């Protein structure tokens, strides 16, 4: 009996321990106001319960210390987990080339929680990613939002169906190796996407008019159209990769025509369309800062993120997709490289924390160090953006998920 009570006590202690932690930082950047000197973040049951200067830490609470503490970082658009660290076909599931439009492809059915690149991101302080199908088809599939932990996808998932990934640009065109003939032109890309949305409108209309009337049975279930109806309803934003100015305008045109919620992805030439993008109210998940200027990204600049931010257009960073090396980019590094080009520290940090959370629609849970939010933190031994600083710890929902120096 005594043995059992000891066991229960031990269990209770370990349960309390899981998700209970205090983190002290010489500077705590909260992404929700001024930085806090000698800040303390208390996390209990996986949620932040207190944050402030020199807070008293409950007796016996596990405590971490670091020079700098930030909210856990967010990668707003990646393929990591679908794309593995080896550029071998068996390790690359981010793009299905069998058809131009396949919104029914779910990220949750292809995500490898044990992928080394997920670990790599986690070790650099990235705690949440919007990962899924990459650019390269008119509609390549869905993305999902996961924490960078968990042995199974169920443990990792924040939102299983987050966005529908679309591409309006060069990479969506068929090439001479493709058996398919379409889309062979940009006009055809737009027509195919519009057709798809019209088909979804018709499908939705049939469901609505059926409405229990036995003479008008609902149309048979169709995963593709069901997904597109959710796009029409604004439930799933269309994440549109568009880099050239004309492709960005096509994106805005189609969004207006069908009154759908879109998020611009890549947007290499968005600096040419600041007014138009601002007026549309669309958010931008900007290309990785260090992306190569190739193909429809040939006019990429290092000051686009700053220009968009200065125009109050919501901007988040992404690691994107890399076919060669580095096999993934790291949003910490990408945000850092905006600093020499005039982005402020605060804006750069916001673009990988709170602004990313808002664009992903999960700012009620993550993106800043505020009471009630998930206990996700990144610890650094100096200015997190300096090349020579290190990530020294990562906390997700109060659990230390990395203590390696990176």
């Amino acid at each position: 009996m005594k043995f059992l009570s000891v066991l229960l006590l031990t269990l209770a202690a370990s349960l309390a321990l899981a998700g209970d932690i205090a983190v002290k930082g010489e500077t705590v950047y909260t992404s929700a106001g001024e930085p806090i000197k000698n800040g303390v973040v208390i996390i209990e049951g996986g949620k932040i319960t207190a944050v402030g200067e020199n807070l008293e830490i409950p007796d016996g609470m596990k405590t971490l210390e670091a020079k700098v503490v930030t909210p856990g970082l967010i990668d707003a658009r990646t393929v990591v987990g679908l794309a593995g660290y080896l550029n071998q076909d068996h390790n690359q599931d981010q793009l299905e080339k069998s058809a131009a439009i396949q919104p029914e492809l779910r990220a949750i059915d292809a995500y490898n929680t044990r992928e080394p690149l997920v670990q790599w991101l986690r070790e650099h302080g990235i705690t949440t990613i919007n990962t899924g199908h990459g650019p390269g088809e008119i509609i390549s599939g869905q993305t999902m939002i996961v924490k960078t932990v968990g042995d199974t996808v169920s443990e990792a998932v924040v939102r299983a169906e987050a966005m529908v990934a679309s591409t309006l640009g060069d990479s969506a065109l068929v090439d001479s190796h493709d058996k398919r003939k379409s889309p062979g032109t940009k006009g055809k890309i737009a027509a195919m996407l519009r057709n798809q949305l019209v088909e979804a409108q018709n499908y939705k209309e049939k469901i609505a008019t059926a409405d229990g009337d036995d003479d008008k049975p609902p149309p048979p279930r169709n995963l593709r159209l069901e997904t597109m109806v959710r796009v029409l309803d604004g439930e799933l934003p269309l994440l549109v990769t568009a880099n050239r100015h004309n492709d960005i305008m096509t994106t805005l045109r189609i969004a207006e025509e069908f009154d759908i919620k879109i998020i611009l992805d890549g947007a290499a030439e968005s600096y040419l369309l600041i007014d138009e993008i601002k007026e549309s109210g669309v958010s931008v998940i900007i290309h990785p800062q260090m992306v190569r200027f190739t193909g429809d990204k040939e006019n990429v600049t290092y000051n686009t993120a700053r220009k968009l931010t200065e125009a109050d257009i919501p901007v988040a960073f992404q690691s994107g997709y890399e076919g060669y090396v580095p096999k993934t980019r790291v949003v910490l590094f990408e945000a850092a490289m905006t600093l020499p080009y005039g982005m402020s520290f605060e804006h750069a940090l916001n673009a990988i924390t709170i602004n990313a959370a808002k664009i992903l629609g999960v700012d009620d849970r993550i993106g800043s160090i505020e009471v009630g939010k998930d206990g996700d933190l990144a610890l650094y031994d100096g200015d997190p953006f300096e090349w020579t600083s290190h990530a020294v710890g990562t906390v997700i929902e109060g659990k230390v998920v990395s203590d390696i120096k990176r």
Partner: protein
Amino acid sequence: MSIVSRGACLRLLALFAASCLSVGISAKPVAFTGATILPISGEPIEDGTLLIEGKTIKAVGAKVRIPRDAETIDVSGKVILPGLVDTHSHVGETAGADRSAPMQPEARVLDSINVRNSGFKRALAGGITTINLMSGSGHLMSGQTIYVKLREGNSIEAIAYKRDDGEVDGGMKMANGTNPIRTAPFPGTRAKSAAIARQLYIDAQEYQKKIELADGDPKKMPERSLAKEALLEVLDGKRIVHFHTHRHDDILTVLRLQEEFGFRVVLHHVSEAHRVANEIAAANVPVSLIMLDSPGGKLEAQYVDGRSAPILEQAGAKVALHTDDWITESRHFLRSAGLAVRAGMSRDEALRSMTINGAEMLDLDDRVGTLEKGKDADFVILSGDPLSVYTRVEQTWVEGVKRFDLDDPDDLAIAEGDFGALVPTGRGHIHDMGEGH
């Protein structure tokens, strides 16, 4: 800040293309004062003076006597670093061998370069002044590399380094591992790769013997072979082998070949250098590393680790860093040194790895790589600490001529990108040339 304004120089260029270079270089000495100078050859100099005259450094130090006729440029608060040396880059449309054979020592990168490619301007924007331009790694031997200095020039000859014998200076690109393994006539295995390379060198040795036996008699000389002539330069040590290699066993294969044939070699990329650092150091073979943002990629490079930099340093091996542009963008080359320090390399060695160590690997250390009297006036003016993300390259000078200036709108467009600025030949300084628009 420039001696002869570039606008003036370029207007002159339009009139007297050939004579502009000499006009661009001031006859007067120029003193850059007030900066923190990192000469690399010695300790940092606070409030130092760099004195140049023509193409050459005249003096560097805390107390330099500035000649009365010198122009003085106040660069207080800035940091001056030697022009960076990139030991491995593909800017400028480099191409060597084609798909016809795995070893083509006669193919020259020299014959492929487009000197107007915007890649050279990007390199200058990154503070790079000397580059080893290489052909690819899809061959066991893809051809002759070329060492260039990023001075103004209308031809590859104008920017190429020249050897003492007057020939264009460069190395020889080789590779092993999986890149050159292809369908016939390329090798299908690693052993075959080594055998093909060995046979080629043995053939060159035989060729050399014939030449020696001919003893100057033209009738006894073997027929000229461009390939073998190039290989003899390798065997003579005139041409350094730049060897692309990744896996630990492939690295050791390079050391084995080097020992058998005695050529001079620099190991390039060297993903698994951390696993054979002691062997590399013992062979006294230098290493040119690439720093990447994440592991993975090719199977043979999956264990790439930035910690190779400190591990090699501690083992006593010489390390340089390279861009392999477009793998690393030339404009961000300094970041590689930052990443090496992040991985544990000492700050001093990281700065040497961007400058003098690379110069040594190209046999150019008598001319570049440090700020010392008598060396080429190649230097970078930075806004701050070279290893900080907040620092900008403000100016890049090559042989006494300002070649990049952040205050120049066209150079700014190259440095940050702009619509049409980075198309292959760049938009450069067209409007400066008096063509009007």
